[in-house]
């Protein structure tokens, strides 16, 4: 491929070994990320969003979690087969991460200073002084007042929003090319959320950092992401530019997601409709469409055959996997017609509702 993407994930499979059997956490996820692009990932809890991210940087919990297939390439360099030491050098400096809960993601017994400096010194041969200067710059950049004195503080002396700013500063400390932000604002107050998101967008834009933004908040995605992947049961089931996806969602699950959040844009008549049922148990290897049990649009075919991620209109042209012209794809045999999006459809009460 001539236009190599910054990050290419292909058919990623992750399994967890537990006492109850293997959990199929990620089942063949593929996506690309171009430089400077922001990819949103949406989906319910436990659908494999975070696991995918951890798998990319090789931080799956050991020894239970394992990448069992697929590849992850950063600038064409295969990451899944790297030695731990090589992977370590990638982490933090080329791919950085921000986690959901700023309250627990910072080490409570270490000063902010130590946590920032160790990040820098882990990858750069710099003096402690230089690292400290850099740390102050970073804190200033994320809007921490009195950075010099705040460096001496411990995490518990910061508010949640401030802590997340520190996390962002830490993640951007080495100017990584990819930033993975895993629900960065979920744990924050709504008023703070906006500030932090704003900061994040500003800093990534300034630096041209490609970002994967994971959230279950579609509202956030609408404002932040260039493209959106919707995940369900360890797989991407719909993908497209943010505009495409929000305007014409095709997969029944995406539709469900959109209908289950309040619309702030003043559109009336849209009642809040929860998606009935629960995501499937990932212990059993999935057969057929994983959304089958909860799907109002299901057909018999869905029960036995797994739908592939294909362009929504059955187009035959080349599939664009990144950028503003990305092809809108969905994994569904019986996509939702645009007309039905607003109204929804009741869940059929017959046959196989529980699996």
């Amino acid at each position, binding site marked *: 491929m001539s236009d190599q993407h910054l990050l290419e994930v292909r058919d990623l499979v992750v399994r967890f070994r537990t006492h109850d059997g293997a959990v199929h956490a990620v089942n063949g996820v593929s996506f690309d990320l171009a430089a400077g692009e922001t990819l949103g990932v949406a989906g319910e809890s436990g659908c494999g969003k975070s696991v995918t991210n951890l798998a990319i940087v090789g931080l799956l919990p050991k020894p239970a979690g394992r990448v069992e297939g697929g590849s992850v390439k950063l600038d064409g360099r295969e990451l899944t087969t790297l030695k*731990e030491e090589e992977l370590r050098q990638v982490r933090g400096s080329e791919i950085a991460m921000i986690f959901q*809960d700023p309250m*627990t*993601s910072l080490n409570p017994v270490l000063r902010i200073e130590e946590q920032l400096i*160790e990040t820098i010194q882990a990858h750069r041969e710099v003096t402690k002084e230089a690292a400290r200067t850099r740390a102050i710059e970073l804190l200033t950049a994320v809007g921490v007042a009195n950075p010099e004195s705040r460096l001496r503080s411990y995490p*518990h002396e910061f508010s949640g929003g401030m802590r997340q700013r520190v996390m962002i500063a830490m993640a951007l400390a080495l100017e990584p090319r990819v930033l993975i932000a895993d629900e960065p604002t979920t744990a924050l107050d709504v008023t703070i959320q906006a500030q932090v998101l704003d900061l994040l967008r500003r800093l990534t834009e300034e630096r041209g950092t490609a970002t994967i933004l994971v959230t279950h908040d579609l509202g956030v995605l609408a404002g932040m992401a260039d493209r959106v992947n919707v995940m369900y049961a360890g797989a991407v089931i719909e993908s497209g530019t943010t505009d495409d996806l929000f305007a014409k969602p095709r997969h029944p699950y995406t539709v469900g997601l959109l209908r289950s959040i309040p619309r702030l844009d003043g559109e009336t008549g849209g009642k809040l409709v929860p998606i009935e049922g629960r995501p499937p148990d990932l212990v059993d290897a999935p057969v057929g469409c994983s959304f089958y049990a909860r799907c109002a649009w299901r057909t018999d075919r869905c029960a036995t055959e797994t739908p592939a991620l294909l362009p929504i209109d059955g187009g035959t042209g080349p599939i664009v996997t990144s950028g503003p012209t990305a092809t809108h794809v969905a994994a569904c045999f019986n996509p939702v017609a645009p007309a039905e999006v607003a109204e929804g459809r009741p869940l059929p009460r017959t046959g196989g509702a529980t699996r």
Partner: protein
Amino acid sequence: MGRYIVRRLIAAIPVLIGLSILLFAYIRILPGDPCVAILGQHRTPEACAALRENLGLDLPLWEQYIRYLMNTLSGDLGASVVNSQPFLAEFLTRFPGTVELTIGALIFALGVGVPLGRLAARKAGGRIDGLITGVSLFGVSIPVFVLGLALVAIFGVILEWLPTQGRIDARARFDATSGLLLIDTLFAGRLDLFVDVVRHLILPSIALGSIPLAIITRITRASVIEVVNEDYVRTARSKGLKEQTVDNRHIMRNAWLPVTTVVGLQAGALLGGAVLTETVFVWNGVGRWVVDAIQNRDYPIVQSTILIFALIFLVVNLLVDIGYALLNPKIRYQ
């Protein structure tokens, strides 16, 4: 920090008062004449009269208690019934032995327990973990005196690797100045004797340290397993820190906290266990002394030893809490 210590000291006051009341009551609930309990066989009517006067046995209880408290605070902790030696002087000659023994046991327990716990946590669920858990179960289930007897028989008598009794080779005829032989021998420049003292310490330390070892192993394992799954450890890894840095700085700095608390609580168990260990290993310490005192109905010695041991326990726990606070900034600034 200073305020924290002061607050902890103030919190210890009611406990000390309660302890003094308990021990004050102890001698008075003993069957028979307190004069017999306190002066013993060699009592004379004059001595009894003097004692009554001194303790005010005819006064109301609260006044007697005040006297007891004043005496105790002024360092008068009573005297031995057997040889009339004042408690404190005799205690101080034996205390260094107990200090070395308990510290030896603690070093053994921490030095082996923490690495074992870390190893078990790293291999959690595996065969090594199972083995370590089994060993720690055994350690917590085997009484000090049974283990002591076994160690003496195996490593002392059969293999002749290590000495079985006492704190130092009696042939060395060494003049201890502080009574802490590890320090005394070093100061005297007697490296050979220092080694000898260490060799004498090994078996008793293992016997006494086995239960704390087992507990520390378990708590370290549990604590590391818990910390390993903390978000900040994932953060540390995601920053690309070396595994060693993650381990030492991020995991252990936090995992130490519960271990520290347990070490403090084990201080009491160590002092109690010293009583049995010293008996088994003919160790010249407070424990062996208090056993003799019990057999001889030397109540003032028993009473004051309990007081001092309780004080040590409180002080050690205060130190542990301060250490905990130093390790845990959240407490420090509260």
